[in-house]
């Protein structure tokens, strides 16, 4: 294993454990959605370097993929929300990630989802993203969430629609090539989402 991917032990491991104990965890019917950790990195690497990598800003090399992971995780620290890992409750296997971020210069928080190949086509991304969406609106009181994806990525568009997002054509005109969908809290309360 690359030396920078070996998790800490001793006192820094305790610091990390304490930190994660203070962060939220979201349970859904099949999944545990929780903040990403260093041990989840190989799954991130697999997704970013896999066939969907081109939809995620790729192609990615080792350095770029890890920098992106670390900065998405760092958002927990800087923004109070960040990269979530999607864990299968039964097997404890990490199936992918929900990226909840707010990059410098963006006007609003963003929601993205990425899955390993074997987890696709089972509604996993929708189930996990729905939990994070509800957390963002009901706990963090975020006014909106924006979803950016490659317009060729039909799976992402399907998830966006199932989440109740609507296409933002005005923003797309300015964004040159990205599909942009937007989620806002429903007046009908959380029930309206499910």
């Amino acid at each position, binding site marked *: 294993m690359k030396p920078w991917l070996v998790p800490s032990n001793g006192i820094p491991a305790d*610091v990390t454990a304490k930190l994660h104990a203070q962060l939220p965890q979201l349970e859904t019917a099949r999944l545990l959605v929780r903040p990403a950790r260093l041990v989840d990195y190989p799954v991130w690497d697999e997704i970013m370097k896999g066939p969907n990598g081109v939809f995620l800003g790729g192609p990615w090399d080792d350095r770029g993929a890890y920098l992106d992971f670390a900065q998405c*995780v760092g958002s927990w620290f800087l923004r109070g929300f960040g990269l979530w890992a999607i864990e299968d409750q039964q097997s404890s296997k990490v199936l992918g990630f929900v990226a909840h971020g707010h990059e410098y210069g963006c006007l609003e928080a963003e929601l993205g989802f990425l899955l390993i190949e074997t987890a696709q086509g089972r509604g996993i991304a929708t189930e996990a993203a729905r939990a994070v969406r509800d957390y963002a609106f009901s706990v963090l009181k975020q006014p909106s969430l924006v979803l950016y994806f490659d317009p060729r990525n039909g799976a992402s568009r399907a998830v966006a629609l199932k989440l109740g997002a609507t296409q933002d054509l005005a923003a797309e005109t300015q964004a040159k090539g990205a599909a942009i969908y937007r989620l806002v809290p429903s007046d009908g309360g959380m029930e309206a989402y499910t």
Partner: protein
Amino acid sequence: MSFDFPSFSTDRLTLRVPQAQDLAPWTAFFMSERSQYIRETEPTEALAWRAFAHAAGMWMLRGYGSFVITHMDVPDTALGMVGPWFPVGWPEPELGWMIWTPEIEGQGMAFEAAVEARRYAYEVLGWERPVSYIDRENKRSMALAERLGAVRDPDAEKPYENKDDVVYRHPEVLP
């Protein structure tokens, strides 16, 4: 969200974990000539965000990371960064330092901060003889390494992105 992280005071300075408010002074540093030795490309604000969030992410991923340096009585104003970290591509963990603003140069402040951060690395993290990677043109930084008692280690492996760096290795026993 507030987390229970280490912070230290020296005679004149406080070392604490990075916070969102540090992004503005970090970005000002990153966009300026002062950051020429720590970046490989022309700076942009987007790259500044990514680099800073990455440094903050180290704390989440590893349980340690770089500390932000402030004046002891002005803890909201970040002046630089110092401390142990282990970013992607590094063959071993590093003790690094960056002074963002010229305002604290020439007063031994970087030395004071580095001594304290190194003490944390040795005494709390249990590090032995860590390295510092320094651009071969960065004379001030090399002078600081030497003042800290670090010596050139020509045999040390370098980060793959920083083949032109000079590697300093810190002493086994702290002076």
